[in-house]
């Protein structure tokens, strides 16, 4: 690897900064940024500020403000992300209940808030109060009976369709980039890709508004992934207020990494989990300075959300549980079984979802996005209403499944046969035999499980904001709870078996089905996203206890192993491959023994490399070259005979420089010689004024020799974020390797379709 002189490189950039051409230094849409240039621009800016700060007090204060601007941006991101998450939570709470009824005293209250001050709630009917009326009560004055049921059913479906239609129309008319989860695109953006408008203000507004609508419509999706997108939009918005971040794409991505952490933090109420999620899943270059700032943003966001208090009990998430019943070593066996289930479900989901999304992308199904959303919403609403576990929102379902059954629970899931003479305190109920309500709940849960598994495959990826965390956790929680109840009943009825005898005496509280639900949720979420540390930390921040780390880890590790046995990609990497984004994954290992000559362009039999010479081409030649080819850049050599490398020039900058020169500098015509050296070449008299383009030349392009192993080349691309790399032999230019070539080569080696890489 040859680095052609740091001094020359920095001298070139100082020229570059002093007299910028218009729009030079910005990037085109759907292109990759030059990480090294951004980094050195930031270093230059910092050095300039530091040297000026010694001049006067005002400059010193400006340098302090510049240093603190990072923290101010984090604070603002945390505040806005927390506020938006609070608004979303409150609005979802209200609109979900709007499908079933309305609060007469104050229409803005949800069911629970409406009955909050009422004194007419009874122990058996904790949800009923006269101020809240279902639609059938309001319209036809009947609350029970077949006609009331049918009317409620019909209105539920109508509301769901109305919300979904509004959502997809808003997305289509105002911000088409607001659809989907957002995490695959944010991963690609953070690795250096540019998608203009993806983190814009309209996308932020529409995503927030439509997220509430789609979650309230009862579709099988969650809001965590879209909240990460919303938080990154906030990050983009605030970073555009400070020139330190708005002019430098590399620094901006540091802010976006921290914003992603704030997004997960408010989604789960897990600041540490959010930072780890950003580190593990979303970010590409995560310097240690960003770690501390991400944590600050996540804390501010969590604190803001807490002060809005959307759930009325100072908790950040609807399903925060806080019990501390112990678990036993023999229970590790069902936990590992749940892990296997999670891994298998993850594989099934990824394969089916990618197949369906590919079908949506290539066939006529993709031409009817609005109709597709309406049909899926109708199917979901029709099937979900009869089953009480799918009728309510998924977060409430998970909350109920996670909760342990005390003596005071009135749900069907806790309909155990109580011993009437029991006098134990509330949180130490021993294992009891299941009553009929529990058996009903079990088969209802089984049906709900099958339904959710199937419908989520078709829901994720539609043209509405959709997240994946909550449905996966719901699937896992349902499976876990069923396994937990099964083990509990087994332990109760067969407490003399050898496996139960040691740790489960009759009359003791051995098995907590709620814990199984949590472990199942973690296993399924890990199987689909392949998160490791961040998953365990999020789950234990959700549960508030360190006792359950070992079961959670066992399940997460098992599910990851099982899922990795079938395919290496998580759902987000699979969507990145589906879209063909130029994302060089840090987790992929390249273990093949190919060399740089095998990958470089031009191959044998192709047209020779298009190069510029240092002082023998005219403006017209350069323009013809640019017009005839569509390469993003051209190497500059000494002359066509001796192909010794001087540097590399970007296409965009050549175009702008030549256009600028034709307009501003007089004497520059099509026959003018273009030169990249310091001094103009020897020209015959009466020749037109030559054009100096040394400013746009990158004098330190990365080069490798032709015998460099591809393993090293891939490593260089990954670690430095290169876009292209030149190949030389004995000092002479041989060819070029671009990021697209590297990705295609890796796809080819992994027997995937190399033509699916679409972007540069």
């Amino acid at each position, binding site marked *: 690897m040859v680095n052609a002189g740091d001094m020359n490189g920095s001298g070139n950039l100082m020229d570059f900064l002093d007299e910028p051409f218009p729009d030079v230094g910005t990037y085109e849409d759907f292109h990759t940024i030059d990480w090294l240039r951004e980094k050195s621009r930031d270093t230059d800016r910092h050095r300039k500020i530091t040297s000026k700060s010694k001049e006067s007090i005002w400059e010193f204060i400006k340098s302090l403000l510049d240093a603190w601007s990072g923290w101010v941006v984090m604070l603002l991101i945390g505040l806005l992300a927390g506020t938006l998450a609070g608004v979303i939570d409150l609005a979802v709470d209200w609109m979900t209940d709007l499908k079933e009824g309305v609060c007469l005293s104050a229409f*803005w209250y949800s069911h629970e808030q409406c009955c909050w001050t009422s004194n007419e709630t009874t*122990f058996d009917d904790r949800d009923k109060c006269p101020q809240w009326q279902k639609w059938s009560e309001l319209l036809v004055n009947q609350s029970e009976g077949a006609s009331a049921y049918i009317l409620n059913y019909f209105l539920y479906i109508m509301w769901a369709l109305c919300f979904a239609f509004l959502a997809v129309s808003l997305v289509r008319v105002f911000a088409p980039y607001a659809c989907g989860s957002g995490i695959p695109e944010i991963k690609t953006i953070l690795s250096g890709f540019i998608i203009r408008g993806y983190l814009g203000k309209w996308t932020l507004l529409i995503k927030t508004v439509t997220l509430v609508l789609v979650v309230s419509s009862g579709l099988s999706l969650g809001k965590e992934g879209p909240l990460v997108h919303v938080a990154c939009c906030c990050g983009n918005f605030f970073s555009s207020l400070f020139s330190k971040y708005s002019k430098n794409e590399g620094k901006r991505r540091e802010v976006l990494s921290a914003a992603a952490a704030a997004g997960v933090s408010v989604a789960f109420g897990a600041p540490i989990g959010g930072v780890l999620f950003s580190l593990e899943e979303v970010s590409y270059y995560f310097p240690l300075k960003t770690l501390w700032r991400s944590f600050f943003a996540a804390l501010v966001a969590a604190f803001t959300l807490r*002060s809005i208090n959307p759930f009325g*009990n100072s908790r950040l998430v609807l399903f925060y549980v806080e019990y501390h019943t112990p678990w036993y070593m023999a229970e590790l066996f069902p936990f590992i079984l749940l892990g296997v289930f999670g891994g298998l479900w993850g594989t099934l989901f990824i394969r089916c979802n990618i197949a369906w999304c590919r079908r949506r992308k290539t066939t006529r199904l*993709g031409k009817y996005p609005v109709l597709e959303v309406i049909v899926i919403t109708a199917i979901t609403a029709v099937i979900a209403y009869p089953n009480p576990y799918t009728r309510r929102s998924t977060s409430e379902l998970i909350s109920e499944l996670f909760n342990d059954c005390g*003596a005071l629970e009135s749900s069907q899931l806790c309909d155990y046969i109580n011993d009437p003479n029991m006098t134990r305190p509330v949180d130490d109920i021993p294992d009891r035999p299941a009553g009929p309500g529990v058996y009903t709940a079990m088969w209802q849960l089984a049906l709900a499980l099958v339904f959710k598994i199937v419908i989520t495959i078709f829901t994720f990826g539609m043209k509405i904001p959709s997240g994946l965390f909550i449905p996966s956790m719901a699937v896992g929680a349902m499976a876990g709870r069923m396994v937990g109840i099964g083990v509990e009943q087994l332990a109760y009825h067969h407490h003399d078996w050898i496996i139960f005898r040691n740790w489960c005496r009759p009359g003791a509280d051995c098995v907590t089905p709620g814990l199984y639900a949590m472990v199942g949720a973690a296993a399924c979420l890990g199987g689909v996203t392949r998160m490791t540390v961040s998953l365990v930390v999020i789950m234990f921040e959700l549960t508030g206890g360190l006792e359950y780390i070992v079961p959670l880890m066992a399940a997460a590790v098992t599910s990851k192993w099982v899922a990795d046995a079938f395919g290496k990609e998580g759902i987000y990497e699979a969507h990145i491959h589906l879209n063909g984004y130029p994302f060089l994954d840090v987790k992929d290992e390249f273990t093949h023994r190919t060399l740089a000559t095998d990958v470089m362009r031009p191959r044998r039999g192709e047209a020779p490399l298009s190069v510029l010479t240092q002082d023998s081409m005219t403006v017209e030649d350069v323009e013809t070259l640019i017009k005839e080819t569509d390469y993003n850049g051209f190497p500059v050599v000494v002359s066509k005979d001796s192909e010794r490398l001087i540097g590399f020039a970007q296409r965009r900058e050549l175009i702008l420089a030549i256009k600028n020169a034709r307009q501003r500098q007089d004497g520059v015509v099509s026959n003018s010689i273009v030169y990249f050296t310091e001094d103009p070449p020897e020209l015959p008299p009466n020749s037109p004024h030559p054009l100096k383009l040394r400013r746009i030349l990158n004098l330190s392009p990365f080069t490798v020799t032709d015998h460099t192993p591809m393993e090293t080349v891939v490593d260089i691309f990954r670690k430095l974020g290169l876009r292209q790399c030149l190949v030389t032999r004995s000092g002479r230019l041989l060819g070029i390797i671009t990021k697209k070539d590297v990705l295609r080569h890796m796809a080819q080696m992994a027997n995937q379709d190399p033509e699916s890489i679409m972007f540069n």
Partner: protein
Amino acid sequence: MAARGGGRPRLCSLLLLLLAALGAEAKNSEDVRCKCICPPYKDHSGRIYNKNVSQKDCDCLHVVEPMPVPGPDVEAYCLRCECKYEERSSVTIKVTIIIYLSILGLLLLYMVYLTLVEPILKRRLFGHSQLIQSDEDIGDHQPFANAHDVLARSRSRANVLNKVEYAQQRWKLQVQEQRKSVFDRHVVLS
């Protein structure tokens, strides 16, 4: 960036309104409660008791009134009861829902205006002959279909009103490009 002029002030005003609402919230006496749930005991049915007490008084003895069981049984009864202190902010809920509904309503009105009203107005203003739709726009109800024409026309004049219209048309073009990438060509976000 798809930055229409209204985007940034809109976001700022939303933020300010929300923060003002949060700052101005008064502790409504209806917004705190201590909720005690007592299960069935002997021949008394289960009941729920709500009372507005402070957090340190939130236990069975202060809240359960009148006590349904005689003196010696009170302790056994209260041991089964579970009392929780809860607070909420009704002002926050009200302000948030009303702001959300008004933003949703504004967006819906604007959407109706853009998709239905504006093409009719433009057609009346500029006449049928000048609205030559490009080939890609035929067949699908594309909002902003005539953005190209208006953009070309307004580039010639340069006063403030036309600058605003110019920005708006530029935004519409950007959204149209995005829509083509996402919905038609399925290049991104598939």
